[in-house]
């Protein structure tokens, strides 16, 4: 198949994949009972009434993990082309890739020594 064809396939898939789960949900709409009342649509908390707001500011810990992940993920995207070309790389191009991974490890070691990787 043509390159463009492959992406057309993914395009159609992207549209269709969320639509297919809609079908059983719509199907259920035909059969299911629809007797909503105030008590049913309350927030579930094991029978206790909810206190305070749920949508709060979350702990900064999650944000830090997100940041470290972002560093790794962006560098991963840059490492994949290196991996694809690995089988025909010259030694210096190979060494450049290794250097890049070392820099990545450096970031990990920094975060490690700072102690932010420990879950508190």
């Amino acid at each position: 198949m043509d390159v463009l064809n492959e992406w057309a396939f993914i395009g159609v898939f992207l549209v269709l994949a969320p639509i297919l789960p809609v079908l059983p949900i719509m199907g259920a709409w035909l059969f299911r009972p629809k007797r909503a009342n105030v008590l049913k649509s309350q927030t579930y908390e094991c029978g206790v009434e909810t206190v305070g707001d749920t949508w709060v500011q979350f702990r900064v810990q999650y944000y830090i993990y997100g940041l470290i992940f972002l560093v790794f993920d962006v560098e991963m995207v840059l490492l994949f082309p290196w991996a694809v070309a690995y089988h025909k790389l010259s030694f210096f191009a190979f060494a450049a890739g290794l250097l890049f991974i070392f820099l990545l490890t450096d970031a990990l070691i920094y975060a490690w020594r700072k102690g932010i990787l420990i879950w508190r």
Partner: protein
Amino acid sequence: MDCTGLCEVLTQGGTDPGLAQFLSILLGVLLVVTVPLITVIFLIWIERKIAARIQDRLGPNRVGPFGLLQTFADLIKLLAKEDITPASADRLLYNAAPLLSLAAVALIWAVVPYTPYHVGADLDIGALYFVAVASLGTLAIMIAGWASNNKYALLGAFRVVALLVSYEIPLVFALLVPVMLAGSMSMVDIIHAQSGMWFIFMAPLAGVLFFISSQAETGRAPFDLIEAESELVAGFNIEYSGMKFGMFFAAEFLHVFTNGVLITILFLGGWYFPGWQMPLIAFMWLGLKAFIPYFISLWIRNTVPRLRIDQVMKFNWFFLVPLSIVNVLILAFLVMVLKEIGWVPVDETGAMALAQAGFIELLPMTIVLFISNVLICVPIVNRLRRMGVEQRAAREQLRTQRAMAAGD
């Protein structure tokens, strides 16, 4: 764009070429997307049967022969359940999350090569596509937790996202290994590169790392902090009922098997099996081999207790991530050295080419890489064992001290 098969037939029958192209793609998508959705119905039965056997139960055995129709009965039950949206929830996101959850898993199947000739889309960047699409599932969980406006759900979603995001790093690093060995990100090329020797023998460590982190990505025990029934009741999907809950449920079950299929493609040689190269049998081999990681995953799920979030994070950041980086570095270095001394099969341009090489040619290289992997593992596993012994001893000491203090 070329036009073959169904598209060609339609064009000759007088259909507009563009429309014919679109129709053939649409049919292909429907075929590819139906396979996982049909599979999941039987996967649920298989998983329940295996779980039951491990726990010394019989499992579903009333509805139909061997309880095979149990899933259909459950489906009908879910269809008839009332669908409640909490009054305080964000309606749009709340309804979109289950759709995204299942779609994220189904989308992976677009690049799964069933046989050498039957693949949804043989993308040049298949491996990268998998990483991109699989993280949509994380997004779905985050959306579900946030939109439910429920504290259990939100806490579950927070934990899950921290967990999934962390375990994606060793996953992607392990994924780098087959890409390096095959010299391509296309799933079909990766399988072709394993015609002589499966990658699991060249890079067993990468295979194990991929398996562990994919187990975490599905949120299965010992990483099932998503659900953590005793703390979070049900986690992110607590407010969902009826068919919407069913979608999350199906997505999880399907994800486990999808990971089995991916491990088969990346490390177990896909449709290759010594002595069998027929296309139709190829499909069978892929399915059968996918059951090996799938079964191990179920086995672990039903025998290992849940870890605490801090233990899970520690295991990832202080063990899996450094190990996966070291693994890539050592493998890259060793293959380069092996190429210099001529133990790696090369093509006429001098580039590494595993696809054309046979079993015998690949044997010396495989043995060296396998031994190097074992050598990396031995001190690390040894250290882990020692740490475990020390922790147990410390806990024992604490207990004795407490007992003595109580005795006084």
